[in-house]
């Protein structure tokens, strides 16, 4: 980006063709599922397009993508299915778009969740990042609009940010195609388990909240041993999230306990397309009917 040469290499089709094959929507089967989350209007759809080669219409207004889009690509001989989630500021409210995003990240168990964050508004974007880090520890943060941040005379120490968050952070300018190769490399590293994230967990809760959470978290962990996001489940239970209550009642949460790496990948490949995966997608059915008013 700074040196014209590396930039030229990155956007050269020959360079890309070596590693990345854009699949558009032709996905017969896949090795890894990548979820794309982020605040509205951070360029999520642009990142999605540059990974998949699709030309989904992007718009400069928050809330453009309310349904999820899916696409695919091949990188380093692995097939990736990528799901573009609706842009949300948080994952804590009851609106449909937040529910879609929240439930997909939890129940869809994507192998990697890429969070697209707006570098010019980092603080606000971090609110969502921290919430996602409570749900899953397989995350790559895509620090997008880095060119705009520079124009606003903002400098972001992405290495320190990566250290703070415990997950890879990749600065990108997706509109210009900058940083996409680096992003792919990191997605692959997290997907294959080559990079193990140690995600930041929220620390500043009040004492009362901390106590309540730890009591509940302990109970959940002993009911579902090995569950990696018991604290998030506890948070949602305190909120009274009906989807989580249901998952506890039916024992569905037990399905979310990760198997060891090799088992995880092969078992997933053996699945029929509308077998277990169908159930997962079901948990975030896009057209959720409104509660009917009387």
């Amino acid at each position: 980006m700074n040196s014209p040469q590396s930039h030229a290499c990155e956007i050269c089709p020959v360079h890309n063709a070596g590693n990345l094959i854009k699949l558009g929507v032709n996905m017969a089967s896949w090795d890894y599922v990548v979820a794309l989350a982020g605040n509205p209007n951070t360029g999520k759809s642009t990142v999605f397009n540059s990974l998949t080669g699709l030309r989904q219409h992007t718009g400069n207004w928050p809330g453009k993508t309310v349904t999820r889009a899916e696409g695919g690509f091949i990188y380093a001989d692995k097939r990736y299915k990528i799901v573009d989630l609706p842009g949300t500021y948080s994952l804590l409210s009851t609106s449909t778009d937040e529910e879609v995003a929240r439930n997909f990240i939890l129940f869809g168990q994507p192998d990697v969740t890429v969070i697209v964050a707006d570098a010019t508004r980092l603080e606000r974007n971090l609110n969502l990042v921290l919430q996602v880090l409570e749900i899953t520890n397989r995350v790559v943060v895509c620090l997008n609009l880095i060119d705009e941040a520079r124009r606003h005379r903002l400098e972001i120490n992405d290495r320190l940010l990566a250290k703070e968050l415990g997950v890879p952070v990749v600065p990108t300018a997706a509109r210009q195609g900058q940083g996409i190769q680096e992003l792919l490399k990191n997605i692959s590293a997290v997907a294959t388990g080559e990079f193990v994230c140690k995600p930041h967990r929220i620390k500043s809760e009040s004492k009362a909240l901390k106590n309540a959470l730890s009591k509940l978290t302990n109970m959940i962990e002993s009911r579902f041993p090995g569950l990696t996001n018991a604290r998030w489940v506890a948070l949602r239970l305190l909120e009274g999230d009906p989807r989580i209550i249901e998952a506890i009642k039916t024992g569905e949460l037990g399905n979310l306990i990760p198997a060891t790496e090799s088992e995880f990948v092969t078992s997933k490949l053996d699945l029929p397309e509308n077998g277990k995966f169908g159930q997962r997608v079901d948990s975030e059915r896009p057209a959720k009917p409104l509660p009917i008013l009387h």
Partner: protein
Amino acid sequence: MNKSPVSSEAILSKANSLRWEIGENYHDSLIDAIYQDAGRIAGRVVTKTGEKPRFDWDRALDKILTSRLTGLPVMLLLLTAVFWITIAGANVPSGMIASLLIDTFHPALKHLAAQIGAPWWLSGFLLDGIYLAGAWVVSVMLPPMAIFFPLFTLLEDFGYLPRVAFNMDNLFRKAGAHGKQALTMSMGYGCNAAGIVATRIIDSPRERLIAIITNNFALCNGRWPTQILIASLFIGALAPAGLAGLVSAGSVLAVTLLGILLTFVTSWALSRTVLKGEASTFSLELPPYRPPRILQTLYTSLIDRTIYVLRRAVVFAVPAGAAIWLLSNIKVAELSLAEHIMNFLNPFGLLLGLNGVVLLAYIIAIPANEIVIPTVLMLTVLSAKLAGFGAGAGVMFELDDANAYMNVFQAGGWTLLTAVNLMLFSLIHNPCSTTIYTIYKETGSAKWTTVSALLPVVMGLVICFFVAQVWRLVG
């Protein structure tokens, strides 16, 4: 599962009791915690490396585009400019496509059919019914869409739409609706079905239903061509030639604004009757202005919208063309079926300041608004029995210029009132079947789907009726 030391029920009841202990401020204190962490991390990693540039474009633009004083006038100017460019720019290419597909290809195909000895009913059904309906839709709709959509998309890319929402937020709140409804309304200008899916950004079910029911008052791309054509034929013609384009654009703008007004009035009425409640607050982010990427915009709006919509229009127009041809050629007691229906509807239509042709066209066009104009033209010729036009019953014919359109309309007994009421009825009538289906999918309620479908058509009939009565009293 029963082996585990803690049962699911125990977890749930513990959660319930803890929820009571923590009390109401749980949500706020959690959000507080997240904000604190985020603030701490951001404070450590972000540094300002200097002053912002001397001149802040975003702020300067926002001062004009979102000011109380100039925000709305600038919005109206921009809309007028978009309409005017569309109307002025679409005429020539429309004529060229029509002369190619209709004047040249159609006679050639007919000739070919005659040579290979195809029976009259077969070539009539296929070429006069199906082919001409498709060709009509392409020539009437392609040019305005190919101009309108990219222009609208450029504004969207630039970051203007959230400013529109910002400007109109106050009005929506006064109407008891959600400010984000301005965004779903903007989506409705492309396609109402898309606008209805977009209402998912509204959290409160009450406000979301209001947004769904009123989305139909945003003219969709199936209706823009109707508005633009009728405006330039009837209303533009009232002005001196030099101003015709501007006057037609102005009348389309007037209909658009009426749609916005009806959105407010209906939202207000709903939120005070069946959908009572206060408007909820929300925060709306004004994104930075971004220079639109012109080439990519042209490409995506051509592929995503123009071609998509056009394909849909042709898919619906083809069976409609076939149906019209059959209705016009199956005769019962000397008259064709179409004539019987139109004669039956005509008194009712005249009462509304319309006519039987328009009403029948709107019934045939329930699957897609796009085919209203071609259907109207064809049925008008049929009912007026214009010897000089077309090749027979149920044939969509060639029209070389605006005068030819006018001759057809005049022979069909059209007046300025018919044109005005057609524009009004095009704005205020039932949503197309795709939109109705989308409403059903999104609400999951047959009741609200019925309300959304019937409310506008009843309003449209009432408004047209009143306009017609007043018009006749004054005129």
